[in-house]
């Protein structure tokens, strides 16, 4: 009997295989459950290939889309539909950053504990932090230009506006090339002079007596300016966006220092915004003479992701502390990065100094009166791109109006001068948000 008892261990072994195999599956389920639940073959949550539950609202409870057994319906206003298509998504899941593809699990109300169980199979009501009307204004302000606009609250991380053009109307089939692409999160642009913010921060923290900096711009150096800026100090070089002066500062900082700062300020990072990874920027330069200087003023091979630039601006405004943006309000079933501090991106004193310089830009160059009541701090940029008649306009910064701590990034393709093209888009959107 004892012999048989010992041999029966083989049976126990068999039982253990069953048990641990099952536990392995449960582990797999906890990792992939959302993907499996949102699989198109799941007849419970799909009707005729379309998700049949859940709806999406903006911050003011404006309905953006509603999924039910009859199909998916979108907002009635065509402009709102187009302005928000990159956030809400389309029926066929072509817009990869849309809720309809990137946050399907949240939409159907999936979680590990309850599965897709919701009372009466209603799915989830997802409330976005976005303001549909502000997005519409941004979309309209871009006019016939392509471009991208983003605004977020740099204290809380709530994103108020993400608009990309080209866009399309999700109730029709799209035939516009590039319209599925969310440039703001997934793309990069040539930053032009907006990149001088990075060089400025590095200079404040690393060049002694930078306040005594002086440069005589004759407009004809190797790193040329479009105007003869004359004699400029550090503040004025930033406000006038003097390439010659910034070329010199960049060379003084050196390649490794510049590379470190670009990384430290998050421009070559990828951020996770509601499960979407933003595209990393690039800071590359060849061995050629002046290549580093060109890179230091945001031309040449530099690329930045619009969202990462907006985060940097938010950090300057927020006394150096960066905050991760999010665009879905926490509901029970959604895990997100709400109020997630990214830590101190630059030190407090530096932030204060850069802030003064950004204000100076507005006062000296862009004109405070052009921005109505906005307490605005900004840097413009103009990026020349090959094979293009007009350069791309950029405008990024933040406002400090009471109760409206918003940072923004605006990019207008072929917009020409940054402060006038992109600046006016920024003004319209911010005014809409404030009023």
């Amino acid at each position, binding site marked *: 009997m004892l012999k048989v008892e010992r041999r029966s261990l083989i049976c126990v072994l068999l*039982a253990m295989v069953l048990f641990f195999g099952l536990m392995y599956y449960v582990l797999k389920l906890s990792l992939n459950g959302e993907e499996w639940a949102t699989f198109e073959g799941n*007849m*419970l949550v799909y009707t005729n290939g379309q998700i049949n539950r859940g709806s999406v609202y903006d911050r003011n409870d404006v309905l953006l889309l509603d999924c039910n057994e009859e199909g998916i319906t979108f907002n009635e206003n065509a402009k709102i539909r187009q302005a928000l298509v990159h956030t809400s998504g389309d029926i066929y899941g072509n817009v990869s950053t849309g809720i309809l593809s990137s946050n399907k699990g949240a939409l159907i109300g*999936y979680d590990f504990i309850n599965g*897709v169980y919701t*009372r009466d199979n209603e799915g989830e009501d997802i409330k976005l932090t976005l303001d549909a009307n502000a997005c519409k204004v941004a979309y309209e302000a871009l006019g016939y230009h392509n471009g991208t606009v983003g605004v977020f609250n740099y204290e809380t991380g709530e994103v108020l506006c993400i608009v990309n053009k080209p866009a399309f109307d999700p109730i029709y089939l799209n035939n516009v090339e590039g319209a599925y692409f969310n440039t703001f999160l997934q793309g990069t642009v040539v930053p032009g002079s907006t990149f001088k913010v990075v060089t400025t921060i590095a200079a404040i923290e690393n060049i002694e007596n930078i306040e005594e900096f002086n440069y005589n711009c004759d407009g004809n150096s190797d790193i040329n300016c479009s105007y003869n800026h004359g004699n400029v100090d550090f503040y004025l070089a930033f406000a006038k966006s003097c390439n010659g002066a910034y070329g010199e500062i960049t060379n003084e900082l050196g390649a490794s220092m510049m590379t470190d700062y670009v990384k430290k300020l998050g421009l070559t990072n990828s951020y996770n915004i509601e499960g979407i990874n933003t595209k990393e920027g690039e800071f590359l330069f060849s061995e050629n003479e002046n290549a580093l200087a060109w890179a230091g003023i945001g031309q040449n091979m530099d690329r930045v992701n619009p969202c990462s630039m907006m985060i940097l601006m938010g950090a300057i405004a927020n006394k150096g502390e960066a905050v991760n943006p999010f665009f879905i309000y926490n509901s029970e079933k959604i895990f997100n990065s709400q109020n997630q501090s990214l830590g101190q991106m630059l030190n407090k004193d530096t932030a204060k100094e850069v802030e003064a310089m950004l204000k100076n830009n507005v006062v000296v160059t862009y004109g405070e009166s052009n921005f109505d009541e906005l307490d605005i701090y900004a840097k413009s940029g103009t990026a020349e791109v090959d094979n293009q008649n007009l350069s791309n306009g950029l405008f990024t910064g933040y406002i400090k109006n009471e109760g409206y701590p918003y940072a923004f990034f605006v990019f207008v393709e072929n917009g020409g001068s940054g402060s006038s093209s992109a600046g006016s888009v920024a003004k319209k959107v911010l005014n809409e948000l404030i009023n």
Partner: protein
Amino acid sequence: MGITNFDISIYTDVVRWIFVFLAMYILISNLQSLLTTRVTPEVWAYLNIDEKYSIPITHWENVIGRSSSVDLRIKNKTVSKNHGILMRNSNGTWNYEDLDSTNGTLINYKAVNYRETVTCEIGDKIQIGGVSCTLFPISLEEKKNNESLREKDKSPISPWRILLAISLFQMLTVVQLVISLGDGYTSMISLSMLGLMVLMWTYVLGFRMMGSRGFELELIAFFLSTISLAIVASSSPDLIFKQFIAIFIGLVVLIIMCLYLRSLKRSKITRWLLVLGSVGILIINLIFGTLKYGAVNWLELGGVSFQPSELVKVAFVWIGAATLDELYKKRNLNLYMIFSGFCLICLAIMGDFGTASIYFVAYLIISFLRSGDFSKFTLTFGGAVLLAVMVVRFKPYIANRFSAWRHVWEYSDSLGYQQTRTMSATANGGLAGLGAGNGMLKNVAAADTDLVFGMVAEEWGMIIAILLVICIITFLLFSTMSIVTGRSTFYTIVACGATSILVFQTMLNVFGALDLLPLTGVTFPFVSNGGTSMVTSWAMLAFIKATDMRKNSSLAIKNKLVNVGYSQEEDYNA
């Protein structure tokens, strides 16, 4: 229906968690009772060694020898590692058989020849090698002591609360099905569930009155059957009454088998009948079988169709079992090997690879339990794997069936259709499920058989689904734990073989549906829709009951409260 949607959803909202807690209560209290049992072994006699000390003999079948794995160990160099076997007869005498020991055995000074069985009585001298032993009786007082010790053993959990919990579970399930199925609800569902409830109470009350106490195994089976009815109600309501009848037949088979297994002699002789019957029915299946789901393993008889290979599974375990003396006879194992080979060939011809692999694993385990030959075990296993690889290699159409394995998401609308839906369903259900009748998997082919784990996980939740698997595992653990007090290796092997089959079958069913193994289309014991599978599962339960040596707990072991001095043995060799 007069009930608003709002009311309905509240019901499911609450009840789906109540189901989880009820199931946990029912199953965990049963499992705990089974797995924490401590049994005082009964002492049948003593073996006195050199008039110095005595070893209690606690089994009916004992190996005497020097090695650490024998039952009666004599540490003396003149004793062989496995010297001889001492087996008890019904009349209180003992049979001794020498295992070709080096120094031989003398009984009452007479040498025991090789392969000779000598009957000896209490008081007889047994010279084992250079050690002289005597069979000592146990005194009447000791017998009584023993009895009172056994009285103190932890008794099985009382069945009444659990019965009430299962009944509540069944009633709540019926209401849930009324809500979720709407117009699809038929009165057959309530009738079948009520039938099961009546069956359950009648069984427990009836046998309790006759003195039985241990009902954990049956209660678990009744619970599993309840889930089975709910699954069938959801996926194929027309078949529910048939499923209830299968449970009824299964229960009757359990009772008959338990009573039949009481006599070891009868059980042993029956093996030959079973071999004949099995061979016959498999051959009939090969000739007259009908094709269903890609395998010719169905037989139709008088309007009832069933799977002979399922029924033969029960016989397969029975035939494989052997008493201790048989374990030392090679011929016996060889015959079993031939029989197993025959069964496997038949199943291969039928194209039923799932069941074939179950038979094969059962053969491996039973032959290992019998021989303890690990190298042979690995060799057979390795050979089979090699054979399988070769078959897959040279028969591309078979390989094709497995090509989606581990890649089902790439074949989600072809070969991986069922598995991907099953995995999706397990995600849908979460921990507490969507409520009986609310799933989507029920619309997929074979949802209530091959994919039943997915259906349970979707409609009842992952917690209950896991509990069902744990129940099957507990059957096995209980069987291995009972070996210590087992009367005969016959019952031990039968129980371990049967529960290994249940465990392996569950593994194929669950892992196949979840793409951890290729989908082979076998059933989940007690839960899958299907009459033959249900009856077989209950029959297997009889084998487990046959090892349950707890006092008055098993129907398969004759109650002996009345007869203190003369325990259990009346039927042993009847």
